Structures are given as structure tokens and as C-alpha cells.
């Protein structure tokens, strides 16, 4: 299961929590809803073919998305991030469908 994190991403980035809160409040002033979403992730993948390692990838990324929502479908969205080495991503069975209608 997922766990509430004990260490803040803001603290890891040496950002002043109160200052960020003020900026989020100011940036979303007048909006109906919104949030600042911060993310840090690591991913790795290993693929073996007939017992031999065929591919190994490791990737890190971090960034934020700031979203302001107003009225029905008006939306402002800003994002910034950085990524490490490119990865194949996680092997998975993809469920196609549901993606054919734009917001």
C-alpha cells in the first residue's frame, strides 16, 4: 500500500514552506480550485531474453504542476521538471480505450 511520506519534497529541495504556501495562495487567487503537485520518482526495468540480460534502464524525474481551475472547463496549468536517463518505462499490459474523448 502507499504510505504517507514523512519527508517533505519541499524540505528536500530546501524550499521555504510558508513562502511556497503564500505563492500557491496568490497564484490560485480567484480560481475555483487548483493545487501545486510536486513529484519525485525513480524507476528501473530489467529485461532478460533466454536468461541473458537484454536491457537495463534506470530513470529519475522530478517536477511540479501548478493548476488553477475556473468555472466549468477553464484551466491554467504550468509545469516544470527534470528527468534522468531515458527509460523504457514500466512493462505493463495497457488497457486501450477511454482515451478517445478530449477534455
Amino acid at each position: 500500500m502507499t504510505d504517507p511520506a514523512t519527508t517533505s519534497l519541499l524540505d528536500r529541495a530546501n524550499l521555504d514552506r510558508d513562502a511556497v504556501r503564500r505563492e500557491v495562495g496568490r497564484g490560485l487567487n480567484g480560481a475555483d480550485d487548483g493545487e501545486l503537485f510536486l513529484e519525485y520518482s525513480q524507476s528501473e526495468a530489467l529485461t532478460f531474453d533466454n536468461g541473458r540480460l537484454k536491457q537495463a534502464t534506470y530513470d529519475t524525474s522530478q517536477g511540479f504542476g501548478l493548476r488553477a481551475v475556473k468555472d466549468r472547463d477553464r484551466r491554467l496549468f504550468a509545469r516544470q521538471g527534470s528527468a534522468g536517463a531515458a527509460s523504457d518505462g514500466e512493462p505493463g499490459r495497457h488497457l486501450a480505450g477511454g482515451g478517445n474523448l478530449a477534455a
Partner: protein
Amino acid sequence: MRQVTVSLGATWQVVEILRPDGESYRDIRPLVRVNISVVAGQGDRQETGSKGYGGRERYARFIETKCWREAADGALREALVNLESVPAPAGEMDVVLGSGWPGVMLHEAVGHGLEGDFNRKKTSAFAGLMGRQVAAKGVTVVDDGTMASRRGSLSIDDEGTPTNRTVLIEDGILVGYMQDRQNARLMQMKPTGNGRRQGYAHVPMPRMTNTYMLAGGRDPAEIIASVKRGIYAANFGGGQVDITSGKYVFQCTEAYKIENGKLGAPLKGAMLIGNGPTDLNRITMIGNDLALDTGIGTCGKNGQGVPVGVGQPTLRMEGITVGGTGR
């Protein structure tokens, strides 16, 4: 056995959400997935089989010998079964869906249609049907993001709302939608903890977590024995659905002929073609063997992929169109 491909993948995601009211939320989200694919051959013929598993835990449990051996045996068994397969019959017939991963059909053909955005915009086949009978009696469908260690589970969604067990269809009646904050607000409903995003560079929207149908009371063997002529769809590959019309197509990766209540030859190339909302009313028997998938699904919507779980018990559906090249 001509080829074995094994893949291990893991992600470790930490998120923090700050809301304009000063509230903040944090979550750590581990995710592991293992997949084993085999190609088996006999003469000029080759067939594949695969099994995968995973969940929101660290590696330890997933690399235990018992775990990978069970998956390897399953993949090999599926490939060997498919080596014996004959072309699937075509036409309208009764279909028995296996438990577990075949719930992908429920996810695609029904679950997406119960996401709040499609209903607010009235582009879902279920729009405006709240409180109405949309499925056969006995059909209860839930979305549950709170299940321990499941691939689709989260403590909080990507807007900071705690995840929930949301009943969507109860005894055939539509009773709930999956909501993010925006669509819940505009529909005067409560957010259900389904506001999810692929990552920081994507906007959240209503998405499923672990979506499944509850068990009924029938023995799976009794369900198969009740079919005079049809197919047993034990496993699926992917599928596609049009949310507005509810029409779907699914490809079986393991299926068998049913004749006079008995399982017959394995089938190659069987496809199920239908309409989700219509076919919910064609469910005539619900098994007592609810199973969730083994932790392998990634759902795509508007270009964003998120990990999800699916599940269902064995089901009998009447009068489903089967696509195939045999008789």
C-alpha cells in the same frame, strides 16, 4: 520452448500536494511488476503465453521462487494450450467469462462510462441514468482504491482526497460515479478519491483505481455446465471501447469451446464484440469465485497511463457476438 522473456520493473514515486487553503498531503507509492512470456513451438507452428504480477510493495515478495515459478508455469501452460488451438467459431452465442483479469472488459465497457467527466459532459452511455436499472439484478460493481498493496490502490488521490470504496452499480441499479474535485463540484457531488494523473506534467481527471464486480452464488463448474453451445473466455489481451456508444471489442488470449456443458478444444483468435451497457443486462449467472487480477493493468485515457486493478467472478452472458474464422 523456443524463447523465454522475463521483465522486472519498479517505480518509487513520492508526491506532495499543496492546496490553496494551506492544506498539504504527502504519499509514497512503490510499484513493482514482473512479467514472463514464453514462445512454444511444434514444427512450423509457434504460440505465445504470458503471465504477469505485481503490486504496491517492494521487490521481496515478488521475487520469491513460489511467485515467479507459478507465473512461469502459467505462461508455459498458456502457450502449450494455444499450440493445440483451433480457429474460433463465429456468431452469436453464450459466453462464459473467467474470473480475474477478464474483468478488463468490465473496466473498459462499463467502468470508463461511470467516470464523472464523461457523465457531466453527457458523453457516456450511462449519462442521466442515475438510480435506474442499468444491469441485470445481482450485478454489483465497485471501485476500491483502499485495498492493501493492490496495483490500483492509493492512500490519497493526486488531488489529496483519500481514496474510497465507491459502489457504482448495486444489484443492477446505477448508484455512483467516480469523481475528481472539479467534476464533483460541477455535478454537486462529493469527490470520491478518483482524481488521478500520470505525473506532475499531466492534469488530474477521474480515473479508476481497482474496479471489480462482486461475487454471486454460482459454482463456476455449474456455470460452464449450463451452456449448450458457446465459448469460455479464460483470459484476454487488451480491448477497446467507445465511451459514448459503449461498443467494445476484446481479443481472447485463452479460450475454449463449450459443447453440451463441457469444455472442448482451445480456440485461436476468438474476439468478443458487443456493447457494455447492453451486455450488462445479458449477465445471467454470477460465480462465487471473485478474483482480482494479479497486478498487471495500466489504463490509458487522454494520453495518460495510470496503474489500475480489475476483477470479477466467473460470469455467464447470453447472446454475445463472437468473432472468429472457424465454425
